């Protein structure tokens, strides 16, 4: 049952009514990133009565977040953002259900996390994750409400809405380019993500209720410093849609994506094209394992080498026993790579197969 008193001021709007409020109550929205954009999105969705909200963020609250991330206070520093945000929005509205995922969104956990959600809100701060979110939402045919910020400027658009254009149609992925700076690097005016996040939440509510015009096929750019807005129209690029569908479907079907590969799964990966298999042992170590995609980059040189790789590149690591490759995998995942696996018990577990 809907609490008609709590929502009376929006139920009274003929465009919403009790039917619209019921749609909000039944909606399932996944918010990826609970930072500058995520906070206002979560706050507004919770207040509006969106009945099921998922929050994904593997980070903890830091004092440098407090000038803009309005769900957190000083004593939250050091605590999980997803859990803290969950607690904060449940205090704002205890009548909704909230699920916290205290982990970063990766190719490994994406299939599990997105299960059952109807809309994804992209509030992340890394371009590679945006491509991942795009591919998952294209493959699942659910809308992705995108926004991102840079200093005093914000961008917002809705992708994959009713078969509309996707993130890749607007920004095709390019390799070997400099990483795009995030807030930690380039700075941000505290109020800006709150403005942009509120616009994102508005689009989410309109999509759920089914009213108004949705910001699809258009990118809105807001410049807070000069109070200027600009809209750029863009259309669907069938090749880019297809790329998203292929990537996303592959990912969602590999439901049991386990980072620790069995010898069989490892050999299977080695035979696939497009995967980089890295032998991270020192150059003298044996037995040697050869394959068309296999390269030897000793662990000490991996950091340097990984800078040349695209972060969406699927990578399989192996060493003698699985210990060093685990370490290397954790390093790559931490530095933003999204598809990293390793041979769980090392090349020793493969001895029978290579001889």
């Amino acid at each position: 049952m809907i609490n008609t008193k709590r929502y009376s001021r929006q139920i009274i709007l003929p465009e919403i009514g009790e039917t619209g409020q019921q749609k909000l109550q039944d909606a399932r929205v996944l918010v990826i990133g609970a930072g500058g954009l995520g906070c206002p999105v979560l706050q507004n969705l919770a207040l509006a009565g969106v009945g099921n909200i998922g929050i994904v963020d593997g980070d903890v609250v830091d004092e440098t977040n407090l000038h803009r991330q309005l769900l957190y206070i000083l004593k939250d520093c050091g605590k999980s953002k997803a859990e803290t945000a969950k607690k904060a929005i449940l205090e704002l509205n205890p009548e909704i259900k909230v699920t916290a995922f205290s982990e970063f969104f990766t190719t490994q956990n994406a299939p599990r996390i997105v299960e059952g959600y109807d809309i994804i809100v992209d509030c992340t701060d890394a371009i590679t994750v945006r491509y991942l979110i795009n591919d998952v939402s294209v493959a699942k045919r659910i809308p992705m409400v995108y926004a991102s910020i840079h200093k005093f400027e914000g961008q917002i658009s809705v992708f994959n809405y009713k078969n509309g254009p996707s993130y890749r149609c607007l920004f095709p992925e390019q390799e070997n380019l400099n990483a795009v700076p995030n807030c930690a690097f380039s700075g941000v005016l505290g109020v800006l993500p709150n403005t942009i996040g509120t616009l994102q939440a508005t689009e989410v509510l309109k999509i759920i209720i089914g009213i108004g015009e949705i910001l699809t096929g258009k990118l809105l750019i807001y410049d807070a410093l000069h109070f200027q807005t600009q809209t750029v129209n863009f259309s669907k690029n069938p090749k880019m849609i297809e790329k998203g569908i292929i990537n996303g479907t592959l990912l969602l079907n590999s439901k049991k994506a386990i980072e620790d590969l069995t010898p069989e799964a490892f050999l299977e990966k080695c035979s696939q094209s497009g995967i980089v298999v890295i032998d991270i042992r020192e150059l003298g170590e044996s037995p040697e394992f050869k394959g068309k995609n296999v390269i030897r980059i000793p662990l000490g040189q991996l950091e340097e080498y990984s800078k040349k790789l695209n972060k969406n590149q699927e990578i399989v690591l192996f060493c003698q026993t699985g210990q060093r490759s685990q370490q290397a995998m954790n390093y790559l995942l931490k530095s933003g790579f999204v598809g990293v696996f390793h041979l769980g018990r090392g090349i020793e577990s493969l001895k029978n197969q290579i001889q």
Partner: protein
Amino acid sequence: MEESSAKYKHTGRISKFNQMTITLKYFGSLADITQLREEQFTFDEETISVSALKSKIESSYQNIQNINYTIAVNQMMSDLHVKIKDQDVIAFLPPFAGG
């Protein structure tokens, strides 16, 4: 605001024959590189393709080469072969990363 230009076209000396003036707008990290939000360019040509303009800009501001961006002509995302005309407004849009 541009409506008046048609009226005075025959007297106009701003844009000579075989010359075009276009406005370029830079966003996000591209504005950081160019140190400009907007500038006007005049070419001794009547038209120029988006890809030729891109090369000109990338040779003026070399750091732009390392950035992924989309080009919009008169607020419409554009392919590299599109022809730019006199008075067009070209936006250089990188994806932002922050959240």
